[in-house]
């Protein structure tokens, strides 16, 4: 059953690839494991605000560019 948390879409994978980073390298930069990056990219985990800010900083974008609500939530 979908939950409210699963309605956040992540563009982490796209920006990570743009920077030619592996999931492990990105994880090392923001202080989390590769498994955490995999889960964020796969939409199975919504990071905390702190981690979202660190990811945005590591990828040189804003948090809003990395994460957005799915169309059902955008009103």
């Amino acid at each position, binding site marked *: 059953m979908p939950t409210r948390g699963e309605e956040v879409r992540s563009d982490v994978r796209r920006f*990570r*690839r743009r920077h*030619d*980073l*592996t*999931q*492990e390298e990105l994880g090392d930069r923001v*202080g*989390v*494991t*590769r*498994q*955490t990056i995999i*889960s*964020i990219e796969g939409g199975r*985990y919504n*990071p*905390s605000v*702190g*981690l979202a*800010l*660190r990811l945005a*900083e590591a990828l040189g974008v804003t948090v809003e560019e990395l994460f957005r609500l799915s169309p059902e939530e955008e009103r």
Partner: protein
Amino acid sequence: MTDREPKPRLPPTALVSTAVVAAGVLLWMFVSRGWLVVAGLGAFGPGILRELGLLSDHDEFQRRAARRAGYHAYLIGGFAAIAVLSAIEWGGGAVDESAEWIRFIVVVLWLTWLSSTLLTFWGPQKTAARVLTAFGAFWAVFVVATLIGDAVSMGPDPELLLGVAVGIGLLTPFFGLAWTARRWPHATGLCLLAASAIIFLVFGMRRANFEWSAVVMRDTLLLGPLLVSGLALLFGWGAEETTPEENRRAAGRSRSRDQVLR
């Protein structure tokens, strides 16, 4: 290609805990059954150290996964224990020592779940204050009910006044500590730990009259909330998801970014 599979690595904590579990099982098999406790230390030790803030090898996703798994274990373990206990008691037979232990496990599961939930929602100070208020209120009802019972059976008696004084005397520490928990958390935490130790020693005097498992359960129900409240106040338990270290790092990063923007 940026998604190449790195070689899987077993974290050092997992290596150590696996070795300790293996050693515990070997000792249990070949030396003495009591050595199973070593396997227990290996299995549960790292998690307990993480929750105490003494080990920080997990990131937020791993912590969330561990807590989710813990909640599932609580639900399934608690239900299974109650189902077994229910089946034993339904059988009509006398509840033996093993059933007492199952009750104890259920109480520990429930108390742990309750304490963790309260600390997460309210934080240590409010939780301790409310636990103490609840204890005080429960004790007040007990004292009032006893005094009414005595008044009805004995009629007007000077001893009743003494009973009222003693009852109020016993109530005051609960409400007093509930008040101080928000103002002086560390001092109150120490008082609660001292009170727990005193209650344990005082009730320990009656140990011979009960089965050991029943005593352990009663002590857990009585002392558990006081002990947890005291430790929570002393160590500031109840912060969610991010560790103090992560908060400090985030605060430092945000300050340096503000300076750049200015």
